[in-house]
């Protein structure tokens, strides 16, 4: 299970999981689930375009996910975000259908980007994946406080001098970066699961923001590792395991917070009884 090829798969999937855990925390906090779905899925059109003009697929992915992020931000200025996102994803996919129709070559390999090929990552690709991942994490950590502030109370943050618009654009660009890095590895469908489920589950278990972010990374890693292991043992697709483990952990998180709520009559009492020594 840990031979050379599998080792690369473990490593690349782990990098993706860590980035997804960190970025996903803010995706869930900001309610940007739709964008997290739209950018990876729509970027697939970029790969189709890239194959049409004969450049590397990753160039197409990067160009389309970044343009998509900027368009969502621009349209979202005047209208509701979900509408803007929906229009951007259909526009990108529409262009994808045009590109695919213009090639008369055999194109279905483009579709493999939807599912990814985690076992097809070569060790030389690990370096760029790792570097892009580090950039994405660094960007999130750098923006952590203003991003948190503008996610929690946008108006107050703006009043205190946070450029909420720029935060939005910058965050979407980080999602685009994550897309470019993760889609060739785990595919558009899986990266979405990894961005949403671990972060959504993590916030049920802790109230500390940094703790939730860390926990989201841990859950993402656990999800990916057990999915690869289960896929190795059963020969069933990794995507199935990531999807069902993701839903399972989210359900467990919801169950945990429901259990905690039931056990404690009211949250106020609980904070009194649970943290008697906090007084400052």
């Amino acid at each position: 299970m840990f031979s050379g090829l599998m080792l690369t798969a473990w490593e690349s999937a782990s990098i993706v999981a860590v980035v997804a855990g960190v970025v996903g925390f803010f995706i869930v906090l900001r309610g940007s689930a739709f964008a997290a779905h739209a950018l990876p899925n729509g970027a697939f059109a970029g790969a189709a375009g890239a194959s049409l003009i004969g450049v590397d697929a990753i160039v197409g992915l990067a160009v389309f996910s970044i343009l998509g992020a900027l368009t969502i931000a621009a349209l979202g200025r005047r209208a509701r975000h979900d509408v803007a996102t929906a229009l951007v994803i259909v526009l990108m996919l529409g262009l994808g259908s045009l590109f695919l129709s213009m090639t008369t070559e055999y194109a279905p390999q483009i579709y493999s980007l939807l599912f990814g090929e985690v076992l097809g990552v070569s060790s030389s690709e690990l370096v760029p994946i790792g570097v892009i991942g580090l950039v994405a994490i660094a960007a999130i950590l750098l923006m952590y406080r203003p991003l948190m502030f503008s996610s929690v109370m946008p108006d107050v943050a703006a009043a205190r001098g946070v450029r909420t618009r720029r935060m939005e654009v910058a965050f979407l660009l980080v999602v685009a970066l994550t897309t470019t890095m993760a889609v060739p590895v785990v595919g558009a469908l899986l990266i979405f699961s990894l961005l949403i489920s671990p972060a959504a589950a993590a916030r049920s278990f802790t109230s500390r923001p940094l703790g939730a972010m860390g926990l989201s990374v841990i859950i993402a890693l656990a999800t990916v590792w057990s999915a690869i292991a289960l896929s190795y043992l059963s020969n069933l697709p990794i995507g199935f395991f990531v999807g069902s483990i993701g839903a399972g952990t989210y359900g467990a998180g919801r169950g945990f917070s429901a259990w905690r709520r039931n056990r404690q009559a009211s949250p106020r009492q609980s904070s009194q009884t649970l943290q008697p020594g906090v007084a400052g």
Partner: protein
Amino acid sequence: MKFAYPRRGSEMARMTAAGLGLIALVSACGATPSQAAPGTIAVVAAENEYGNIAAQIGGKDVSVTSVESNPNTDPHTYEVSPSVAQGVGAAELVIQNGVGYDNYMTKILSASPSQTRKVINVQHLLGLPDSTPNPHLWYDPTTMPKVANALAADYAGLKPADASYFTTNATRFIASLNPWLQALASFKSQHAGTPVATTEPVADYMLQAVGADNLTPFKFQADIMNGVDPAPQDVSLETGLFTQHRVKVLVYNQQVTDTLTQTFISAAQSARIPVIGVYETMPTPGYNYQSWMLAEVAALQKAVADGISTQHL
């Protein structure tokens, strides 16, 4: 406003348990990776038609694993499982089609580089460019003799002691293609210029070899192959081929039967035009490459001469 969800916890727990149960259940059904017999050359073929030939040329000296070996598999949506990836990593010889048809193999090969492993890429062997529109190279009668010789040469490199054995096998294999070649020639002499319709370019190389006149525009075939919506003119042209009885037979991709393909099959059937389902991967068991190709020509012969449909081999 606060919301409380009593009982939610237990429901969630039950759901989680059910989910895990499902995972455990399907995991139990999974297959286990096969192992190469000791002392033999480990060969992995992306498609089982190549695997079949690799086995015929290698004989007792090789153990062959084919990635796509189920005739019902749609190679377009194939996702590699860990055991396949491992098999490729351990293989001494890998044979693949190329032209983007088995891109996953190209990726896995570059992911587990090896100095000693030999790779036969049929596209490169035939000197075809990446922009080759039709990737179904194994339907071309000129392909496999070259593949057989390449296999014999590579095997000889891996096991020089048996070099002559491999060459003999290759020669015997090439000779055994004769019945198929004769069938192609005899069909061509009787029915050259037979108008046919297709849905995808699966068997186009064979149709060219028998001199059939494929009236379906290639753009339409490419659109269906690539999963894009075809132009209305092409659709009505294709339907017109049946309603106006302009073709003698419909050749469709047996492995991709969706509503779209079904539409044309029904149109052909209601016009009493015979249909033939051709396979992208070799149907098993009971077939080797030669008998499979022979059966495809026989199906074409039966359809054109006697008006009999062959949907399954």
